[in-house]
């Protein structure tokens, strides 16, 4: 009898649990850019599906259209995405326009501490206003702009000897921006194995964010600042400082003297293509692509190595990467928050890194084995220690497009001087901040 009662109670409990689970099971849609780490996330999320009973679907948009598509979705209050891994610069708009759910209470309730994540990523991907403990995203994918090169070419005696003769120093990973340029210029137009190769593939894309992400990789090491005092919007003397002018001139010289012909509108895809097709000795791109590059059967493995964006007056790398946010228009916010909770787990974060995603969790980054876990892991850590990001203001798109125009006009279209380009940029940005009521 006792056994029978126990069985009945157990059966009822199981049935109730099943019903409750069925009632809560949701189909969540996660939106992100279409690139290598997105595939890793699909793989990783299978574990979440098994554990939670929710199903995941994904909306991955190619990078050139990602901002347009997703910002339109948010601005129209669209319900396509329950979770969004949005670019770091969107955080201001996401918070101020009410697109993202504020996560502080949720983090407190679930014991998720932002102190467990790398400080630079929390600052860049999660907080708005910047640096305040108001969180709108969990750091999901750490990233920065770095460099990779043909290790096999750098190791060849004939090339090393020619380099020594040309420059008076040994051919090695560049340790300054000027060495980087010198190395690229050495390879420019050189014959290697019967093929003409070029120095380096850099970002020059006009339409979205390409040339800005490229040029800031030169500006930051020269000491470029957006404002004289953070939060003051006082840009005169900072944006157009002598160091900024020199860095911009440097980037133009790089473009003119050390890149393949026709690289007038190039971004991530073109950089990868140039390297994989054996056209260039070096290339800049986001760390997110490095696992795929290392695994490439033709130019990966022993033929490739990586280095952090070289310093000049100081260390500095352009920040990439994103945080994961819950979209305020989603009708499945509880399930979406469950995903965030699951994703914040250190074990899941370790798997994320193992699969090719860049975890920002300190448990992963500070693990003694991390630096040796991949040939680019140490460089990634170094880069994340000196990252700078573009404006993250709600009007970031307007600020970004102004910079795209001014820089492309000067670097690619040969219009005006570096000083004029930066002066005009200040005018554009001032107008935007005046419209925003911040000046």
């Amino acid at each position, binding site marked *: 009898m006792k056994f029978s009662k126990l069985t009945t109670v157990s059966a009822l409990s199981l049935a109730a649990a099943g019903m409750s689970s069925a009632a809560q099971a949701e189909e969540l849609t996660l939106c992100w850019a279409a690139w290598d780490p997105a595939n890793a996330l699909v793989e990783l999320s299978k574990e979440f599906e098994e554990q939670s009973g929710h199903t995941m679907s994904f909306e991955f948009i190619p990078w050139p259209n990602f901002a347009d598509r997703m910002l339109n979705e948010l*601005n129209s209050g669209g319900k396509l995405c329950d979770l969004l891994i949005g670019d770091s610069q969107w955080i201001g708009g996401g918070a101020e326009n009410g697109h993202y759910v504020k996560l502080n209470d949720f983090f407190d309730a679930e014991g998720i501490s932002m102190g467990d994540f790398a400080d630079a990523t929390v600052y860049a991907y999660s907080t708005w206003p910047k640096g305040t403990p108001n969180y709108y995203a969990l750091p999901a994918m750490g990233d920065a702009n770095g460099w990779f090169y043909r290790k096999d070419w750098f190791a060849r005696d004939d090339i090393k000897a020619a380099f020594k003769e040309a420059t008076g120093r040994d051919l090695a990973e560049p340790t300054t921006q000027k060495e980087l340029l010198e190395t690229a210029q050495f390879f420019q137009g050189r014959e290697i194995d019967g093929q003409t190769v070029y120095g380096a593939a850099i970002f020059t894309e006009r339409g979205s964010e390409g040339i800005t992400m490229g040029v800031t990789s030169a500006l930051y090491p020269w000491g470029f600042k957006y404002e004289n005092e953070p939060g003051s919007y006082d840009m005169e003397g900072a944006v157009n400082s002598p160091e900024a002018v020199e860095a911009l001139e440097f980037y133009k010289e790089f473009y003119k003297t050390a890149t393949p012909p026709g690289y*007038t509108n190039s971004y991530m895809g073109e950089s990868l293509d140039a390297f994989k097709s054996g056209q260039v000795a070096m290339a800049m791109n986001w760390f997110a692509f490095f696992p795929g590059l290392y695994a490439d059967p033709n130019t990966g493995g022993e033929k490739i190595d990586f280095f952090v964006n070289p310093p000049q007056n100081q260390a500095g790398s352009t920040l990439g990467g994103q945080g994961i946010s819950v979209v305020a228009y989603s009708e499945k916010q509880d399930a979406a928050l469950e995903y965030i909770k699951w994703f914040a787990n250190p074990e899941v974060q370790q798997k994320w890194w193992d699969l090719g995603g860049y975890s920002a969790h300190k448990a992963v980054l500070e693990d003694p084995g991390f630096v040796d876990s991949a040939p680019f892991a140490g460089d990634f850590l170094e880069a994340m220690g000196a990252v700078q990001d573009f404006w993250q203001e709600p009007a970031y798109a307007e600020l970004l497009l102004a910079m795209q125009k001014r820089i492309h006009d000067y670097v690619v279209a040969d219009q005006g001087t570096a000083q004029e380009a930066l002066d005009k940029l200040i005018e554009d940005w001032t107008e935007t901040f005046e*419209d925003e009521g911040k000046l």
Partner: protein
Amino acid sequence: MSDTPITRAAEATPPVMARKIKGLSDRAIAWIFVAPTIFLLLAINIFPLIWTINLSFTNFRANRLNRDVEYVGLRNYERILNDTDIWLNMQATAHFLFWTIFFQVLIGFTLAWLINRKFKGNDLWTTIIVLPMMLSPAVVGNFWKFLYQPQIGLFNYIVAFFTGKDPSSFEMLGSVDLAPWSIVIVDTWMWTPFVMLICLAGLRSIPDYIYEAAEIDRASKLRQFFTITVPMVLPFLMLAVLFRGIENFKMFDLVVQLTGGGPGSTTELTSINLKREAFEKWRTGYASAYAIILFVTVFGLASIYVKALNKVKER
């Protein structure tokens, strides 16, 4: 009563409905028929236009719905008309418009004149010539991008073959001097067949007896061309120019695929710039003023042109 469709419809109308309609005048019935169309026209054309005019006097941003909207008077219009960058966009658009129309009319008319002559394989050549205009602009933009590639592009190699220049020594899409011409070339390649078809229709509408009469009057071929062919095809040509002018004024997809508006802003046509203002920068009020200025420009030019076209047709 004769058996006509109208009487059959009258007989088939249910008496209840017939009684209702009986009280209505012809004018009222006509209004009932046209009302849905007028309603649709108002809803999807006139109302948005009025709304855009209204927005053009504000600082409204479609991505900042929680922000107060202020009326700023004519400030948006002032800013646009005093912005040197926008005037450069206008110049780029004018350059694109003028040269595409010029080449398309010239080549299109020549092709139509050649195709109009009876020869073997005439139909096959017509089909081959019209193929480019059947392609999607996105596809055309992408493959011309490859053709213009300095290292592997066929276009550069063809130019190199005839000029002896190094193919990778010039960049059609990357050079400030060449990029405006590169988009003209692609648009001309794609849309010349359209102009050719319209001209062909014009040429085929000229009755043979006019030429026969001219032959009897011993008019030379050149004289026949300038006094018969050109005047009679002119209304068709002007129509083609109108279509291409309107189409190219709003050119977007092909140029975005080819150059993205670059290098710098050399090929940033007004439509590309307008899209950036409206849907990337989200300056909705400003973009509305910009759109109104463009609308007035196109509408004004098109009206003048249509009047000229009507005069030519009346001759």
